């Protein structure tokens, strides 16, 4: 199988260049379905083989961090999902679009591999419908994959991000749970998104609160919103000071807060933020020439992304007809 190595904190890790199992996320597909569409668009442009499995269920990571699912249940759900991945003929590399999926299913896998008796217990339950977790599934986050394909993607790019300044926000559950496994950079200063931006000719911005959590807190975003608003205000103010053209995010939960909160917080902040927000896959698809509405799905965004897209479309590097 084709693969490449990317640096992590100590040494490097292998990222496969083909054969993906698209591990969908409940919150991403609920709020930003354009990210899924963009990722499919990217895989097709790269000519990668991928599986999208209707049988895959939620990883239940949202419920897990919102304290409403017992650990045992979470692990067994994952054992079933892993068995689906392992049953694939070729596409055995799970690609998570959401950092919480990544953190949660990786934690479950570590648990199942570490405690043979727990694995047996989970397997006993899923054996009732003829499934078994063997321990072969591999887990990656989609940003790592895009980073691994950077050279090919640069060649495929229709537009460049020349002269554009992009602030980035990495998901805590990608950078901080498996903190020694962060592809490029480390948990204190993750740069995988900045590298994606730089690859297309843009500039990744540094700002004070770069590693501050978005304040989602799972339960907080649902019922304890003072917390979320306060963290968000701090984050957005620090970001706004660097005058970014775009805010690039990795996680659907962060996208929700960073995009949806900009307008309601205007009064409290005493300034207008108006920073367009895109996800890694959406930006990459856009640069590859995807349709902003039909593929990137900009209508699902609160802050208008069109001004940024117009700036990008001025930087044409290649004459390619727009693909829908």
């Amino acid at each position, binding site marked *: 199988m084709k693969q490449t190595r990317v640096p992590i904190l100590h040494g490097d890790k292998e990222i496969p260049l083909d054969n993906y199992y698209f591990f969908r996320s409940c*919150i991403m597909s609920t709020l930003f379905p*354009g990210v899924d569409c963009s990722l499919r668009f990217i895989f097709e442009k790269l000519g990668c083989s991928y599986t999208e499995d*209707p049988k895959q269920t939620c990883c239940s990571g*949202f419920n897990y961090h919102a304290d409403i699912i017992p650990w045992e249940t979470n692990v067994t759900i994952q054992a079933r999902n892993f068995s689906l991945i392992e049953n694939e003929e070729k596409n055995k590399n799970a690609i998570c679009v959401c950092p919480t999926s990544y953190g949660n299913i990786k934690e479950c896998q570590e648990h199942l591999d570490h405690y043979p008796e727990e694995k047996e217990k989970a397997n006993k339950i899923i054996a009732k419908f003829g499934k078994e977790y063997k321990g072969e599934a591999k887990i990656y986050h989609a940003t790592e994959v895009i980073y691994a394909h950077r050279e090919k993607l640069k060649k495929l790019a229709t537009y460049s991000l020349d002269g554009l300044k992009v602030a980035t926000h990495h998901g805590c559950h990608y950078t901080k749970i498996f*903190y020694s496994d962060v592809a490029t950079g480390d948990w204190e200063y993750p740069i995988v998104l900045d590298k994606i931006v730089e690859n297309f000719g843009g500039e990744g911005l540094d700002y004070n609160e770069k590693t501050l959590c978005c304040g989602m807190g799972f339960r907080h975003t649902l019922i304890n919103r003072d917390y979320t608003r306060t*963290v968000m205000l701090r984050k957005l103010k620090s970001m706004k000071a660097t005058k970014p053209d775009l805010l690039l995010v990795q996680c659907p939960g962060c996208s929700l807060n960073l995009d949806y909160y900009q307008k309601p917080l205007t009064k409290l902040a005493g300034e207008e933020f108006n920073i367009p927000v895109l996800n890694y896959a959406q930006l990459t698809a856009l640069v590859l020439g995807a349709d902003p509405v039909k593929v990137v799905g900009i209508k699902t965004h609160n802050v208008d992304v069109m001004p940024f897209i117009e700036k990008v479309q001025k930087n044409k590097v290649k004459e390619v007809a727009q693909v829908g």
Partner: protein
Amino acid sequence: MAEIKLLEEKVGSIRKKETMLESLKEILDDPRCPDGFLECMQCATCVASCPAARIYEFNPREMMRQLYEGNLEELLKGDRIWECGQCYTCMSRCPRGNNPGGVIMILRYLSCWRGHGLKKIPYATVLMWNLYTKGYSLSPDVFWDGFIDEFGETAVNMWKNMKEIRKELGYLPDDARMEPIPEESMKELRAILDETLYRKYWDNFEKNGVAMKDLLDHLGSFDYYKPAWKEEK
């Protein structure tokens, strides 16, 4: 004499450690208990890194100390454990391999089993129900009915067109997916939920009569939710 006194002190501290371990048995037995759970040296790196500590009087260092002193029950009854934002900055920075955020998750879980924490998660039955019936924790209908008002006019107006926007992108309007999950897979998922502690945990909310009332107070209308619930029961 001095030597005997020293020895007595040592034995005393060992005994103290034993009682401490006894009171923390539930946490130590949890498979998620971090390797460095008993290694905290009270350096407060976690507090300095914690977004919740900036906002509340939330203090993970203090909570670890309270645990070692045997105040588990007090912590489980209190509000403090519910202030953590689950960002895990404490875990990535802890010099002793501890994970205060993870320990807090275990505490919340214990608190719910004891019945104290149920009021703190009024949304629980909605999301539990959602996973049980749709195979997804979150879906567009939950978001629309309960949570969108928070984000103001633009978001509300956008969500009025959300079903159309989703269709344009090839997605189902009320389900998070492009195509529905096969009934076979839902049966498998329900089998897992029924065989593990999920149903018991759920009944815990139901039994205490907390969730349903709080839910309605908090979220107002969940029309789709009530009849379906009744049907299942």
